[in-house]
């Protein structure tokens, strides 16, 4: 009885996830996109601090540069983290998406070992490297906050 209920819940969760993923895919494949929120925060709003980017610089050199290169240009096996391909592929996404992507897939041999703060510091460095402005306050690693900051290639 109990296991049947668990199964039912699992099925519900799986169905919900599948539906959600199918819906988002459909949205991407359709030819229109809804209007964006007018006053949302973006990476143009000085969302990290210079000091944090410095910390991120050190962490990047230690953890990331071996494959992504010191100048973020990437290599045969690792994508670039600067330039139009990088900015284009993240434009329109939230910083929570970027944080999740790094957290769940990097480094490729032992994903999940980097701390949330470490990742957000590296993100600050990546933003600085790509020319997005620094501000007074550091970027927090709280998902709810990161979700409200949009990565945008073009200044809104």
């Amino acid at each position, binding site marked *: 009885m109990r296991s049947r209920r668990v199964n039912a819940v699992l099925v519900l969760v799986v169905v919900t996830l599948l539906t959600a*993923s199918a819906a988002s*895919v459909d*949205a*991407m*494949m*359709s*030819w*229109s*996109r809804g209007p964006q929120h007018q006053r949302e925060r973006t990476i143009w709003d000085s969302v990290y601090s210079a000091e944090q980017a410095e910390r991120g610089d050190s962490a990047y050199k230690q953890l990331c540069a*071996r*494959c992504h*290169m*010191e*100048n*973020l*240009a*990437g*290599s*045969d*096996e*690792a*994508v670039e983290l*600067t*330039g*139009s*391909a*990088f*900015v*284009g*592929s*993240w*434009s*329109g*996404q939230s910083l929570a*998406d*970027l944080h999740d*992507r790094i957290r*769940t*897939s990097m480094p*490729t*041999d*032992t*994903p999940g070992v980097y701390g949330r703060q470490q990742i957000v510091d590296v993100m600050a460095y990546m933003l600085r*490297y*790509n*020319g997005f402005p620094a501000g007074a306050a550091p970027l927090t690693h709280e998902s709810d906050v990161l979700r409200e900051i949009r990565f945008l*290639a*073009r*200044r809104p």
Partner: protein
Amino acid sequence: MTFASVSLVPCRRRVLSHSSVAFALGALSLGALSLASVGVAQPAPGPFTTAGGEWPSHTGDTRGTRYSPLDQISAANFGSLEVAWRFKTDQLGPRPEYKLEGTPLVVGGVLYTTAGTRRAVVALDAATGEMLWMHSENEGARGAASPRPLSGRGLAYWSDGKSARILYVTPGYRLIALDAKTGARIPSFGVNGEVDLKKEVDDPILPDLETGEIGYQGAPTVARDVVIIGAAFREGGAPKSYRNNRGDIRGFDVRTGKRLWTFHTIPRKGEFGYDTWLNGSAESAGNTGVWTQITADEELGLVYLPVESPTGDYYGGHRPGNNLFGESLVCIDLRTGKRKWHYQIVRHPIWDFDLAAAPILADITVDGALIKSVALPTKQGILYMFDRVTGKPVWPMEEREVEKGEVPGEWYAPTQPIPVKPLAYARNGVTLDDLIDFTPALKEAGIAAASKFKLGPIYTPPVLSQAEGPLATFTNGPTNGGSNWPGGSYDPETHIIYLSATNASPSALGLVTPAKGASDMDYVRGFAPGAGRAGFTVQGLPLLKPPYGTISAINLDNGEIVWQTPHGETPDAVRNHEALKGLAIARTGQAGSVGTLVTKTLVIAGDPEVTTVAPRPRGAVLRAYDKMSGKEVGGVPLPAPQSGSPMTYAVNGRQYLVVAVSGGPYSGEYIAFRLPAPSTR
């Protein structure tokens, strides 16, 4: 280690019988089209060919062509393609993958491919995408330590007409043979269906089987009854040691898994080429594998190996001499593995010009003479062509004097060979003329940014990095320029080759002394401390000028470029840039490794970057070009960049295109397109 095969055979039977009905209907309504009818019984009698609507080998055939004569999808209808099915790969491993680079195979109405972070093998109903079986190996620490992890680029199919096998290499470097019907291991192959590629070697893989650095993410090449396996390592810009495991290439019996031969890409003492490693450095040097696809001529019984760099991508002071067979095209005998001929493309490699693309076999006519040729696309954007029987260059080679560098301990080759034809199809060296010049102000800013670097033509050597400059030699090619692993496509009817190329993949060839304890190399890739930002962008714009990426068509009978067109939408970062407002910027194309497919009438390739251009959604585009003129004739949206090479097949009388997409926030997915059913058009 554990493994699992999930077979859904009862379900498959149901699907197949359903498909048979669809086949009958499709055959009736599409009767006028010249598509080959493809049955779904499996295994079907061979030989399988793209002409028969199959895609039986990674590049369509073992010749590297990525060509199919199917013609149902054409310029007239490409824009009306619709999604037939999608296969998301997230659950084929403990986490999603964002780097799906596979090209599937299709034989007998079944699609086989690799996918997911554990490189699972799946068999799908080629008409619907429904999973028929899945095989996955959990290799634990050995898989995690792989220098070439993730889903890989594909697999191989073999059949003797009675039974059929799927062969692939795991991230942990084991060759697995599966029953194509069920996904179960073939017990009579190797040890219970597996050959441990770290054990079947002439020299032990160090330090141990679990962490010993060697792997392969390419698809095995099966030619006649021989499986040929390459070897790959970690990126070699800053290796831990100038000693490393060596990338021997091996042939195995496809029936038994027995090792038939081993070709030493670094000659052993007494073997030809040993003396091209001065001071006995052949004893210590490693790498020099083949990490890309291997090509075979089944009729001639010859195999073509595109060999990578020896240890130390940018510093060769520990291996003085020309270093055969580093960065050489080597032709060996399929049965014995013995060398027939070789040509070293780069002597004493110090630029990371790994031979990255599969050689392409092309039977051409030059000045009235038939030549069985092999054409080699390269990172240099130069197409090297040889008579594939004799190794003689098709077009004369010029010995070009190249600059001698000043890195202490380095050994420099005084000249490098460059063919007089065809002309380079991509940028290789970088001079001031190659820099951004949209406006005078941007040109000035570009020159200022480039002033930190040493510029020069192809084969300008790496420099010791200095904070006050030069930080590095700035060039295009070594990282991802020219042609890389997706290679090219070749049309055997018209003798035209199609090559995608990147003109804007800047590389910084700077050397530094390694950090204490990090390496026993004298120098490794890096920037001098205190150098500041050493980027290749100017206000977010690429430092190199467009076109950033192109597709070129080259007539191999005369070596002339027939057409060349930018490939890919102008990136958002360029199209929307404030400094470019009011300027008419021609389409720039995009930088990125792009696989192409050539069919009866079209060249097909997807964008390697995401853009947002109304009215289509944010994403990429799968584009079709008229193969004779290069004119773009249609496109369909992709939700993410093309990350594997497109392929095509026919089933139930309908032609399909399948392409892998992934990148950035979008995890790996195969998408199949076909035309709407006739009744719904």
